[in-house]
C-alpha cells in the first residue's frame, strides 16, 4: 500500500502541498522582513525566506540552483548584511527605524514590480518554455560557458568593477580622515 498520490482530505498532490507550505513560509518571512521592528530579526527572517526559496527550487527540479541559493544568498549575502548591521547597530537603537519611514515609496516600488512580473507572466508562452530543461550540473555548465559565455563574462567584469569601486571608496574615506 503506497502513500496515496494526493494528500488525504485536502485532495491536492504532495508536491503542491509542499509548494504551498514553502510558499507560505516564504511570504510569511518576507512580510516579517519588512514589518519587524528589530533589524536583526528582519535579517534572520530574510534568511528563512531565502531558505524557503531554495526549497522551492528543489521542488522545481533545480537542486543546483537551490544549493547555489543557500551558498550565496544565505551563506554570504545574508551573513554579510547581518555582519554589517551588527557592526554598526547600537542595541539601544531608536525603535522607529529609518527604513520604515520609507513605507510609501516602498509600496509604490513593490506595486510597480508586481505589475512588471504579472505582465511578463502573462506575456510568456508557457507551453514553449515549460518543457523540462536539463538542470544537471554539466548541462548547465555547458550552457553557461558555451552559449551564454559573453553575458557571463560581462557580469564578471561588472562585479570586478564594483569590487574595485568599493575598495576605492573605502580607501578614499580612509585618506580623508
Amino acid at each position: 500500500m503506497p502513500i496515496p498520490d494526493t494528500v488525504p482530505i485536502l485532495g491536492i498532490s504532495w508536491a503542491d502541498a509542499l509548494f504551498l507550505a514553502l510558499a507560505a513560509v516564504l511570504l510569511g518571512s518576507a512580510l516579517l522582513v519588512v514589518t519587524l521592528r528589530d533589524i536583526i530579526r528582519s535579517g534572520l527572517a530574510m534568511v528563512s525566506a531565502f531558505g524557503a526559496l531554495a526549497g522551492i527550487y528543489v521542488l522545481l527540479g533545480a537542486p543546483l540552483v537551490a544549493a547555489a541559493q543557500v551558498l550565496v544568498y544565505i551563506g554570504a549575502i545574508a551573513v554579510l548584511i547581518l555582519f554589517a548591521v551588527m557592526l554598526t547597530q547600537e542595541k539601544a537603537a531608536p525603535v522607529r527605524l529609518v527604513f520604515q519611514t520609507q513605507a510609501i515609496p516602498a509600496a509604490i516600488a513593490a506595486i510597480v514590480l508586481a505589475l512588471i512580473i504579472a505582465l511578463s507572466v502573462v506575456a510568456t508562452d508557457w507551453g514553449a518554455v515549460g518543457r523540462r530543461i536539463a538542470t544537471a550540473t554539466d548541462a548547465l555548465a555547458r550552457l553557461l560557458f558555451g552559449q551564454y559565455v559573453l553575458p557571463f563574462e560581462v557580469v564578471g567584469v561588472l562585479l570586478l568593477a564594483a569590487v574595485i569601486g568599493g575598495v576605492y571608496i573605502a580607501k578614499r574615506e580612509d585618506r580623508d580622515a
Partner: protein
Amino acid sequence: MTAVTGYWNRLSLASRALLVLVPALLVLGGVATVALALLLPPLLDFLGANLGLVRFIIAATVIIVVTIPTAFVIIYMELKVIARMNLRVGPDRVGPFGAAQSVVHGLKVLSKEDYTPAGVDVSVFTLAPVAVFLTTIMSFLVIPFAPGLVAQDLNIALLYFFAIGGLNVVGLMMAGWASYNKYSLIGALRAAAQAISYEIPLTLSVVGVIILAGTMSTTAIVAQQSGSFLDWNVWKQPLALLVFFIAATAEANRTPLDMTEADQELVAGFATEYSGMRFGFFFFAEYVNVFVVSAIMVVLFFGGWTAPFDWPFPVQLALDPASLGIGLLFLIALAPVLGTVILALPFWLGSSRISTLQALLIGFVLFNVVAVAALLGWAFVSFDWVVGLFWMLAKSYVFVFVFVQMRATFPRVRIDQLMGFAWKWLLPAALLNIFVTAIAVSLVGKG
C-alpha cells in the same frame, strides 16, 4: 481472602515481583504475538511500497543517533590525548581508563540549570543552538561511509555540503547577537568575518578534485579513488589538501583558528552567556563538526571507504552459516554454555582461591569477548560495507586525532593575521591549484 493475604505476606519481595510479572508478561506476550501476526504483513507492505521514504527517514534518524557516540568518543579523545601531551594522566575515574568520562559530562550538562540572562532576545537566543546543531547534522547526510551506506546520494553532494556548512555561521551570529554581551557580539562578528573569508578558499580548493573526478557526488569521487593508496587524490592534489585542511580548521572553529571563542580575549566568545543544554548543543556540534570535516577530507583526498592496499591473504569462509540448517540452532543454543564452561575451566582448575561461581563469571566474560571478536571478524570477511565502514572510520579518526593534537600544539593566532592569511595566501593558493589542475587535465587528460 485471608488465606490469600496470608500466603502473599509470607512471600519474599522477589517472589512477589515474580508472581505479578510472570502472568503479566504471559498475557502481554500473547497479545503482542496476536497483534504482530495481524499487523505485520500490512505494515511490511506499507514499508515496502514506500521504500525510498522509509530509507530516508531511517537514515536521518540513524545520523542523529550516531552523532551522540561520535561526539562522546571525540571528547574523550581530546581529554585523554591532550592530557598525555601535557604529561598528565587525564580522566581515569569513570569506566576503564576513564572512558565513560564524556558520558558523565553529557549528564552533567543535562542536569545543569539552563539559565536565560536578562536582556537577551529569548527566541533568537534559544534558536541559535538549534541552528548550529541542525546544520552540523545536515552536513552528515552526504558523507558516504561505505558502498551504499550514505544517507542521501546527491549528485551535487559537495555543493550541498559547503552550502549547509556555510549556514553554521548564521547560528553563531544569532547566539552572539542575542546574548546581549559585548564579548558574545565580538565573537559573532569574528565568526561571520572568518566564515566568509575561509569559505572561499575552502570551496575553491575542492574544485581541483571536482575537475579530476568530473562529478560532485561524494560516492563517485570515492569510487574513482579505489585501488591502492597510490590512487588517492592526495598525490594529485597536495596543495588542495593543504588549503582545505587549514580552511576547514577555521570553518570548524578549531584551535589555532578558533577566534570566535578565544578564551584569553573573549571569555568564551558567542557561547559566553549560554549554560545547561543550550550550551551543550554548541559543544556537541563543535565535536561532531570535527568528525564531519575529517570525514569529508578522507572522502575527497584519502579514498573514503577504500582500503589502502589489498589484503595480501584473502580469507574465504569455508563454512556458510546458512548451510548448517538446524545445526545453526543447536550451535546458538549450545555454544554459549559450552564456551563459558570451557573458558572457565582453566581458572577453576588453576587456582583454588577462585570459587566456581567466580570462575564461571570469568568464563562468561571471556566467552563474550571471543564471540564478539568472532562475529566482527565474520562480518568483516563477509560484508563489503563492514570493511568500508572500518576503513572510513579508521581514516577519519586519524584526522580527528590530528585536529586534537593541533589544539594542544599550536598557539592561537591573532584575528588580523587570520584574515590576512586567508585572503593573501590561501585564496591565491586555491586559485593556483585550480589553474594548474585545469592545465594539467587539458594537456595530459585525467590519468
